[in-house]
């Protein structure tokens, strides 16, 4: 299922280049079955709101008794939940919350009193298919739910849950998916869309995906996450801007791609994902990429799947983060293109992601396994979006540098340091996002 990108010269067309997805590619395959529903995991730890106690009185306790109970602890009423008849009271600063709650509980008019406990979002999302997403968290699980599926190597992943412990980003950052469009009705994407996008193939404002590629890329970057459905996206909270530059056969042109880049920038997108490749450089495309970079955008592109040199725009070294593909064992994909322009790698083999709801028919859920550097790039784009949310003062070059320097040199045994296969290495969200301990005494 490796996608190959070929550049064709199309006589008579006023285009500089075109991109084609190989007609010989087999379509993505559906999962055969899905896990049963699991409840969300809630943290019920000891952390509670300082200075607040929740109190429920017995039904027969009169108003005067309730006021007296508050007064006995110098409490002030903050909120009341009528249907539960539960009061939130503020107690004096410095008063021990647990002691106050215990003292109130001993009041004969009180049914119970307790601290106002704090819940925390669990950094392991509850998306039903998350356990198949080895790219985000590889515990050595089988890749896919089909008998005979290969088994991955534990830790051959981008350390997403560890990174999410620090931050999952926010919705101030929009990732433009410049691709074949996005299924606007997909249940794992619809809530994440920054609008219906723009179709540069048909020149309208409906970037609906009539191929599948863009929907797959969008899901990896930023599918709705922790929503008890489908898959998790790398950037939980980032918005998706669909920009259609590939037609129903997966073909696009440099002029449309350039025009689309400028449009995406004008719409406020800060991350541009281009999982497309041109065999030759286009000055028009370069100008657009340069413009987007100068406007503060991080541009992420796949290096291509022909096993040859790095395609464009990934090869625009000064402006683009070029992403190669590794697999569930942290081995580079044989078809992943190579060259000095390769900056980093990310998982691109058997990646579970969203596909259009029409793609597999009505009998299958709209998720499938896909292969290729096209699906490695959105992992890096998602990380770039989180970094931009976390540290909005960083420049595009600085965000690229963080992603590069935080990567794991997974082929160091044979090619130590930066190399033409995976650049600095496979991206690592934990190292890019989580405060790094330092000191002489560390192991």
């Amino acid at each position, binding site marked *: 299922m490796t996608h190959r990108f070929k550049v064709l010269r199309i006589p008579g067309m006023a285009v500089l280049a075109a991109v084609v997805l190989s007609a010989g590619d087999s379509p993505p395959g559906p999962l055969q079955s899905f896990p049963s529903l699991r409840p969300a995991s809630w943290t019920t730890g000891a952390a*509670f709101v300082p200075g607040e106690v929740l109190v429920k009185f017995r039904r027969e306790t009169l108003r005067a008794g309730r006021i007296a109970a508050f007064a006995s602890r110098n409490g002030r009423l903050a909120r009341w939940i009528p249907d539960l008849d539960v009061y939130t009271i503020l107690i004096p600063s410095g008063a021990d919350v647990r002691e106050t709650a215990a003292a109130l509980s001993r009041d004969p008019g009180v049914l119970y009193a307790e601290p106002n406990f704090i819940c925390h979002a669990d950094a392991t999302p509850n998306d039903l298919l998350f356990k198949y997403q080895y790219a985000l968290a590889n515990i050595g699980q089988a890749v896919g739910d089909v008998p005979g599926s290969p088994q991955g190597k534990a830790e051959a992943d981008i350390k997403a849950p560890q990174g999410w412990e620090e931050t999952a980003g926010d919705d101030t950052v929009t990732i433009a998916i410049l691709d074949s469009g996005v299924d606007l009705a997909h249940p794992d994407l619809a809530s994440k869309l920054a609008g219906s996008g723009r179709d540069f193939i048909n020149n309208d404002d409906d970037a609906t995906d009539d191929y599948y590629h863009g929907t797959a890329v969008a899901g990896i970057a930023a599918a709705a996450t922790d929503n008890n459905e489908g898959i998790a996206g790398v950037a939980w909270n980032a918005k998706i801007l669909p920009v259609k530059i590939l037609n129903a056969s997966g073909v696009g042109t440099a002029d449309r791609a350039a025009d689309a880049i400028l449009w995406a920038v004008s719409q406020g997108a800060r991350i541009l994902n281009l999982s497309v490749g041109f065999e030759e450089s286009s000055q028009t495309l370069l100008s657009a990429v340069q413009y987007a970079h100068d406007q503060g955008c991080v541009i992420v592109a796949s290096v291509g799947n022909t096993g040859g040199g790095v395609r464009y725009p990934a090869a625009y070294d000064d402006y683009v983060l070029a992403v190669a593909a590794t697999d569930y064992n942290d081995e580079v994909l044989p078809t992943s293109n190579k060259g000095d322009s390769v900056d980093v790698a990310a998982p691109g083999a058997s990646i579970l992601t969203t596909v259009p709801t029409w793609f597999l028919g009505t009998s299958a859920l709209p998720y499938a396994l896909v292969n290729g550097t096209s699906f490695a790039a959105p992992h890096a784009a998602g990380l770039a979006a989180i970094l931009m949310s976390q540290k909005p003062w960083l420049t595009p070059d600085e965000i690229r540098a963080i992603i590069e320097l935080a990567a794991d040199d997974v082929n160091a045994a044979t090619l130590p340091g930066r190399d033409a296969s995976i650049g600095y290495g496979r991206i690592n969200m934990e190292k890019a996002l989580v405060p790094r301990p330092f000191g002489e*005494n560390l192991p």
Partner: protein
Amino acid sequence: MSAKLDRIAGLILGLGLVLGPLQAAPREGGRTFLFQAGAGAEYFTRSLAWDDDTGASTLSAGLALARFGVAFDKGPSLAVLAGYGLSDWNGLIFRDLPFSIDYRAGAIGGPVLGAETEIPLLETGPWNFSAGGRILFSLGSSKAWALTGLGETGNLDGKGRWTRIQFGPTVTYRGFETFSPFVAVYYDGLWGTFTMNEEIGILTGSEEKKIRGQGVLGASLGLLVEPFSSFQVKAEGSLVPYTKLEGGLGLKAGFSLQARFLF
């Protein structure tokens, strides 16, 4: 540190200077004061809050201080302090650098300067009531570390400094011949900054973190031992309660030991 607290600390020190000579009684030979010289060591921990009280860590400091001052007869004493301190800032997190970092590098040494005063207020039988104040400046020093484990080795350098002001009343029991227990309650303010610089590849950043001590009221219990009229040893243990950011009360402790010669 607020200007108001600056003024309060200055007032305490000023009172010592002004009231000392006024309250001093003439000694034999016309001298109304004694010189104090000594040395001491102390250790304390304080809970720190930073980033608008969204982060907390602990400062642990060990100080070796020399002191020199004057003690007026029946009047106040005033001493200047100078020495060296080790301040451990473990747990301080810098999230505004390109690569966020978590300080786990232990103590940084640096000079410490300060002053302290004690003013007698009332003497009733064996009970002495006095007011005291102290200000300490830990000036810190720069230290550099390597940032490893990334695609390139980076450099970090940091410097922390803090100011601590304490003042409040002390009650001393003078009913024993060679030793006097005392108890004190005091305001205990701590402020400081830690500046961290990071450089790795094209990435550079600097973050100054303002910190403050959590809890502003402390209490101590101690013993002043005077085996000779010209020599004193003072031992003291202290506690500073504070409200944890996540709720509940915490307690940080300290202790000190001083030896003083009076001549």
